[in-house]
């Protein structure tokens, strides 16, 4: 804040000089010196996977970058290596050229959460979480899933509102999601579902589930009848800003150990929209780093 006010003071002083060329100089200087938000850094970093821009890699702490994607090696070198592999693949198959379109992003303390459409070894949708220390990225988690050709609700896995609202309700909304997980998904009070999810509107972006509470019930029922109920075993973190809340959990889905990333949109104290990705866990023996998928 102090930097910014100094800049403004300086600006006033220069304008007073009424020197046109100096004013131009100042404008560029101002842009350089303005603090870029952590969120903007993340969006720029992710976009650089597509564009190959070099600067955003500088937002990563080169001495400390703890990688939780179990398929990528630790450190900045690991990030570089995966970009190298992507470029190699794209060379032989232009359809595999990386594409990155971050649809929504928000911040919670030192964490930045991004929801992104990728062409990353094929079309994928992903959530990325970055942790910052002193303005630099020091840690990364993600959860990717292939983009479905057809979805049960007709919505895509990423469309819908992106605007951050209700910034004063962050804590309230995070508590709502924590209680939803605990009571409904972990089973402490399964009948409380309507206390948390709106009975009027529940826009669904999970490709296998229809809109509304009825859609959710139908999908979960079909799984249970087939002998493979969805099991939420542990919640690792709940992050949110305003109307958007992301939960990171682990459990069993379709007879596989998975990580669940669920993004909820909250409106007037009820969940009204849901996006998610479900990724199979890689056994520790096959992981490229020892940081674990979670460990927030």
């Amino acid at each position: 804040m102090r930097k910014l006010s100094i800049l403004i003071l300086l600006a006033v002083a220069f304008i007073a000089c009424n020197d046109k060329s100096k004013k131009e100089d100042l404008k560029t200087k101002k842009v350089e010196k303005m603090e870029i938000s952590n969120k903007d850094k993340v969006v720029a970093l992710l976009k650089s996977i597509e564009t190959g821009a070099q600067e955003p890699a500088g937002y990563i702490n080169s001495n400390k970058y703890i990688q939780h994607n179990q398929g990528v090696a630790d450190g900045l070198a690991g990030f570089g290596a995966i970009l190298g592999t992507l470029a190699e693949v794209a060379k032989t198959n232009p359809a595999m050229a990386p594409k990155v379109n971050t649809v929504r992003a928000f911040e919670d303390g030192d964490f930045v959460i991004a929801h992104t459409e990728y062409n990353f070894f094929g079309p994928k949708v992903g959530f990325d979480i970055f942790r910052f220390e002193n303005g630099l990225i020091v840690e990364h988690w993600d959860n990717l899933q292939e983009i479905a050709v057809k979805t049960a609700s007709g919505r895509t896995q990423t469309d819908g509102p992106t605007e951050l609202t209700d910034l004063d309700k962050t804590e309230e909304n995070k508590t709502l999601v924590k209680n939803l997980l605990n009571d409904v998904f972990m089973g402490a009070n399964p009948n409380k579902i309507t206390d948390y999810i709106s009975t009027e509107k529940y826009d669904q972006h999970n490709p296998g589930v229809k809109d509304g509470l009825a859609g959710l019930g139908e999908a979960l029922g079909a799984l249970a009848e087939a002998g493979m109920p969805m099991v939420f075993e542990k919640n690792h973190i709940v992050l949110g800003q305003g109307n958007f809340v992301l939960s990171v959990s682990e459990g069993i889905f379709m007879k596989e150990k998975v990580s669940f990333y669920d993004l909820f949109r909250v409106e007037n104290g009820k969940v009204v929209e849901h996006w998610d990705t479900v990724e199979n866990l890689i056994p520790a023996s096959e992981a490229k780093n020892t940081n674990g998928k979670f460990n927030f």
Partner: protein
Amino acid sequence: MKDIIKKYTFKEELELEFEILDLAKLFKSKKEMMTKPHRAQFYHILIIEKGKGTHLVDFNPIKIENNTIICVPHNSVNKFDINGVYKGKAILFTKSFFCRNKYDTQFLHLSRLFSDLYSVTKLEFNPKISNLSILINAMETEYLRESDNAKFHILYNMLHIFLLQTEREMRKQGYVELKPSANLDYLVMFKNVLEKNYKTEKSVSAYASKLSISTKQLNKATTTLLDKTPKQIIDERIVLEAKRLLSHSSQSIKEIAYKLNYEEPTNFIKYFKKHTNSTPSEFKENIKK
């Protein structure tokens, strides 16, 4: 000397001696070991959704086909087909996992699914319509859960139900089982005693006296039920062991003869040739192919 044939026991770090695994992944990761003759110290249930090739259980060929369930008793020597396709699930469990009491032991011992009184059980199974599918899904889901007080008991009970339902399927598919009778009791007792003593004791009368019955009674029991004399059953058991030992390369024929209580290797070679139409070394060569 202890390692007579390559034996595979359950991984020690496993708290449960039960696994339900993706068969294709298992076959891919352990192909080298699995395609050599090896004796597994656990029961296998192979649920084949897509399959091709010839699987060997105790040197008997079993055709691997789509939509089948194959039950393999513990201690038998398995050889997976190196060119085979194995897609589906594998359920593996030990005797100590399943046998919580004498009824379980009896069930596992006598069930047509795993009993050595019969040929290996291979059933047809349509995963799309079979109620076994739900149980398989449920076992897989339960198996992945974090351990708690209930996990072992739930898996044990689900396995029990699975085996009972599989037995029912088996009966529907026309597998005939021996009916309970005094003769069956004698046969089962004879098999048990034989299992413990076949390396040292080869005479029929010795077994009859161990069972406190006459050789005539024993003879009647085995011929009525299996159409085999007690002598034939003893010979089959010795030959099977010889084959199992021969299929593992580290032991010489002389050593194997000694293991089976033949003081003269030539006697063993003659005996083996008489029952299998090939010499031990010919058999050893063939199995490696």
